[in-house]
């Protein structure tokens, strides 16, 4: 029998590589263009500005507080949705996706309106929030926490509940089983959730612009700085600040890949 000639698989893989390569090249080209646009001396010059140093400090502090708050809420909520069957669980799960899918400006507007309601006004008489530093943290938290919850939910989904059940038979209460068995096993997911929340908070712009304003030396964070510098035509400063944010994003990716839970990270970023 005459053997059939096997067609080569090479054209198939070449097509895949060419199509995929276009997007990879776009990412690399954007990063390279940013890096080439400025020099270390220019970056250093930008950082001598008091306004930008303030924005860096406020970004670091607010993002760190947002991360802690997001984990504080994300761990219990993620655990509840993952492990405890209760009426309305599906609805709650869908509701928690709202901050992820809503346009950022709408989140900012919703926060602004919320604090114009009678309870919101009453709270503001005790603690000024709108157009003050707490509004920056709240705007970041409104979005970042949803990512933390989703990451923790995926993390708990991936931990075998049997370990916790065994712990119950060994003498643990539900709370002891959680603290001693489940939470230590969730440490990589916890790191991923924290890192992701921090990165999301750092990149938040729309809600902060609407809810906190863009007042220099008051509610200015790095994303606001890029906007403000662009609006006055100072492209060098905008790029220099953008570079910091790019480096921060790359560090986040490296931390998650090295120490975190990549499946939880990927699922958390899925729309």
């Amino acid at each position, binding site marked *: 029998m005459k053997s059939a000639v096997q067609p080569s698989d090479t054209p198939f893989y070449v097509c895949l590589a060419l199509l995929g390569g276009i997007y990879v090249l776009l990412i690399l080209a954007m990063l390279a263009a940013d890096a080439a646009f400025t020099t270390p001396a220019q970056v250093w010059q930008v950082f001598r500005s008091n306004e930008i140093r303030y924005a860096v400090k406020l970004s670091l502090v607010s993002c760190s507080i947002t991360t802690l708050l997001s984990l504080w809420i994300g761990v219990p909520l993620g655990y509840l949705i993952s492990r405890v069957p209760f009426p309305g669980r599906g609805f709650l799960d869908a509701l928690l996706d709202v901050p992820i899918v809503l346009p950022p400006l709408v989140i900012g507007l919703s926060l602004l309106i919320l604090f114009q309601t009678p309870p919101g006004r009453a709270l503001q008489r005790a603690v000024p929030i709108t157009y003050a530093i707490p509004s920056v943290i709240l705007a970041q938290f409104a979005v970042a926490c949803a990512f933390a919850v989703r990451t923790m939910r995926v993390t708990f989904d991936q931990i*075998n509940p049997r370990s916790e*059940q*065994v*712990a*119950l*038979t*060994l*003498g643990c209460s539900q709370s002891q089983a959680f603290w001693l068995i489940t939470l*230590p096993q969730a440490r990589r997911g916890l790191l991923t959730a924290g890192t992701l929340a921090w990165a999301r908070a750092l990149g938040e712009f729309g809600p902060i612009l609407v809810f906190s304003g863009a007042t220099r030396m008051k509610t200015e964070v790095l994303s606001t700085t890029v906007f403000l510098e662009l609006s006055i035509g100072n492209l060098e400063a905008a790029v220099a600040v953008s570079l910091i944010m790019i480096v921060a994003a790359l560090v986040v990716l490296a931390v998650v890949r090295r120490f975190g839970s990549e499946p939880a990270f990927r699922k958390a970023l899925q729309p």
Partner: protein
Amino acid sequence: MIRLENVAIRAGSFRLANIDLEVATGRYAVLMGRTGSGKTTLLESICGLRSVTGGRIFLMDEDVTGFKPARRGIGYVPQDPALFDTMTVREHLAFAPAIRGWNRAELTERVAELSELLGIRHLLDRKPPGLSGGEAQRVSLGRALAGRPRILCLDEPLSALDDETRAEMQQLLRSVRQQSPVTMLHVTHQAGEARALADQVLVLRQGRVEPGT
């Protein structure tokens, strides 16, 4: 002693009803049944991990139907060893005694005793990743026995092991039984395992527990 009186269990669309079962103190009972017959569901209810919708569960003549798992005094060995990934083998063996408030000397003595009995002394400082299936099941067995439970429930603990390791584990279970005054209920669907270990065979068939041969 394990006694179930008229127990009913619901797990989704699956139901068991009118289940009666008795295992006398110190006996090694093997509960057999086809896949999906409800053996694991029944075992989980005895351990307190699944609530019953009717009937009573007695352990050592005490009605434990409403008790939480921690109060039942049962050692549980699941099919998947479900070891604690972040703990060493030593910490697994010390876990139940520590939770139950044993002092350090008692705890150390118990870890040494069990690691000797189960042949896992050389593994004490290892963590679960990297343990073989047989080693993991020995650790799981040791973890269940550590708190000196009155009853040991084993859910197909040998099903994932190769023939040689399974034979070793069967020998180990016989040794455990000789050295520990514990009532054992072992779930399996393998007749050979039942013949090798049981002095009482029960069969879960069409929602009823019957004496087996």
